[in-house]
């Protein structure tokens, strides 16, 4: 029996259970955040936690609990969408570099080299300060400054799969590239790509929080980072506790659970396909 009452497949691995639980919690929070009262300013500013405001209020009287709830879907979906976009970009470039080789590969790797030497926060800062990106803008901005991280890894991965004997064998037997890609290469790289994707989520979440904390995202966009920014002016008073801790804890828990899912994924994919 499982708590949800849905008929789940029997032999779920621990990793699958963890991920499902995580997904469930996230969906629940998102649903709840839709029905809670709106994140309005009020007269009770900097109220400590009470029955009326479970997690207190900030300096313009917004309820921290509501803020944290509303920020959850925003932050999480930005993080996931960003890393998805970034991983798609880097797969495209990595695969191109691996397949084309020669000049194209050199050019792509050179580009990655070039982008890697600059702290992306500088570009991010400048762009964000100019446009104060909203939801989609943040995703685009973050994806464009993180795509280069995994290109090298993915290129190596594709190169390894392309030159594996099973692919060579199929090619020699007259199989088309399309056949090799869909039957041999993509299924083989999928677990690793998923692993990279999960790791990118962590990084993206950290960056979204950072941008929010610096007040660089659209003021309308409530994220855990922007909530934490409220605490910055109230470090001398006890207010930092209810201003900083709830969103901070959410972020840390999110990062930790993504970490565990990623770790489980590694063990899972290891059990699935062992390379002797």
């Amino acid at each position, binding site marked *: 029996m499982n708590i949800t009452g849905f008929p789940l497949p029997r032999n779920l691995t621990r990793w699958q259970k963890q991920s499902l639980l995580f997904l469930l919690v996230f969906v629940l929070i998102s649903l709840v955040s839709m029905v809670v009262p709106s994140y309005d300013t009020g007269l009770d500013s900097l109220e400590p936690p009470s029955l009326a405001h479970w997690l207190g209020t900030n300096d313009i009287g917004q309820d921290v609990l509501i803020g944290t709830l509303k920020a959850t879907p925003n932050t999480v979906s930005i993080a996931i969408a960003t890393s998805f976009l970034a991983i798609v970009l880097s797969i495209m470039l990595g695969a191109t570099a691996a397949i084309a080789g020669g000049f194209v590969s050199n050019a792509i790797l050179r580009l990655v080299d070039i982008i890697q030497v600059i702290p992306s926060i500088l570009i991010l800062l400048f762009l964000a300060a100019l446009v104060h990106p909203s939801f989609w803008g943040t995703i685009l901005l973050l994806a464009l400054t993180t795509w280069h991280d995994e290109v090298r890894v993915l290129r190596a991965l594709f190169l390894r799969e392309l030159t594996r*004997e099973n692919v060579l064998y199929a090619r*020699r037997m007259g199989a088309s590239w399309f056949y090799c890609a869909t039957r041999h290469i993509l*299924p083989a790289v999928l677990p690793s790509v998923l692993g990279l994707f999960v790791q990118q989520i962590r990084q993206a979440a950290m960056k979204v929080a950072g941008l929010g904390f610096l007040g660089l995202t659209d003021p309308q966009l409530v994220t855990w980072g922007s909530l934490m920014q409220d605490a910055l002016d109230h470090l001398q008073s006890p207010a930092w506790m209810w201003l900083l801790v709830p969103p901070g804890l959410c972020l840390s828990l999110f990062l930790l659970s993504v970490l565990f899912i990623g770790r489980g994924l590694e063990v899972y994919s290891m059990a699935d396909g*062992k*390379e002797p």
Partner: protein
Amino acid sequence: MIEVSNLCLHFSNQRILHNISFSLKKGETLAIIGESGGGKTSLARLLLRLFDGKPIGVKEQVFSNRPKGFYWSGSARIDGLDILHAKPGEIRQIRGQKVGLIAQALSDALNPHLTIAQHIEEILNDGSFEDQTVEEIFCRYNIPAQLHDQYPSRLSGGEIQRVLSALALAKQPDYLILDEPTASLDPENREIAIQGFSSGSRRRGQILITHDLALAQRLADRVAVLYKGEVIEEGDTEKIFQCPKKTYTGSLIQVCHQHPRCKADENAANGSTCPVCKKTARTTRSEPTRQGLFISHVFHRYGSHFVLNDVSTLVPKGSCLGLVGPSGCGKSTLARLLVGLEPVQQGAIFWDEGRDATSPARTRSALVSQHPHRAMAHHFSVSDVLQEALKLEGKRNKKADRTDHHSIANHVRKLLQQVGLPQEPDFLSRKTAALSGGEAQRLVIARALATRPSYLVLDEPTSALDMCARSQILSLLADLISRQSLTTVIFTHDHDAAHFLADQILTIVNGRPERVTMR
């Protein structure tokens, strides 16, 4: 005196060693033999406590949900010191001083960032052996002067072996553990090393851990056979080798029969004692014909380096050519050329006079390579692998009947049967990654057969397999070669395997064919 009694070792709930008992006096050599994965190396490492673990009581042995880690019980004493319960400091005292270890002479056996002289200095510097100088040690263990300031990556296997011996013996330990000491040596260095071990064997107690029975026979006074973590048989070397009590020991010795070396040692005039050999004894081959695989003046180079330098040979139809030579002599390149994985740069490879063998459209060749798991997609199931081969083959021949689902399933079963693999649906749906090395190699052979190749190229087909799997694959290949009269080229550095399978053997050195041996 080393006394081991009822020694058990578990990793979490997985049994590695079970109820091991033996004793060893100074002046004796005990060989512990068995297949890889039988727990031999764990035993060697445990005697020096080279991994961390916890002692447990005998009763706790079956205990589920233990945190991961090593657990041991029983006792192991070296001159009275209880190894399993001693403090880390005490253990460090006896390591090197009382018990030495000589491991396999891999280039990674020495610290890549210390020179040879620094290695020697290091063990002399800890106080107790100031009377010896580095030079003396170099002299005594026959390490040439030009190696002193080299880093280990520059050393050959034999030289590393000598350095390892020097390091282990410099402090004159009372006991010596030899863990596959000759496994990566060429025959000459192997001989030198064996003489070294046997000359000092009266002064100390030696534990020899090996899967090489010939070595055990030469060095050991007593032999213990380790199988799945248990000592199943122990006794004097001669007795064990002449009349093994357990079938497992018998089969180990039988595998050894396939080694010409063993045959010579045993002076076994009656070859009929070996059922494997008898079964695979081939009828005399037909006279050389003008049909077969022609390799004519093949040159191949990477950059300015010639990997293959004027290689020419003929493999008559239905015969087996063995190509032997040290690693790096160009064997793998030639194998890739033969199956058309790389274009021929200069020279030509023909099948049956005139058909360009390297073009897949004209001639069918198949490759069985060293790492069977790398040759198949690891997300494929067993039947996926064979079905793919059959489908692609059918598509190429444009034969509709062979792409039909039912006949393919039949064909898959037939192929599996040919290579001696089970045909149950359970096995068919197993992922290739879950197969053992031997099973995977059989499957690769089956896949090769699926395309009805004109000739078969075997590139080190057994070197990644353990002893038993190796002998099984060799006899399967011998069987297939003789029954289907397959033309085969086997590339290997394993002379025994080449002698076992091939009709003629071509030795390649530095990309040049050196000599041909006929059988």
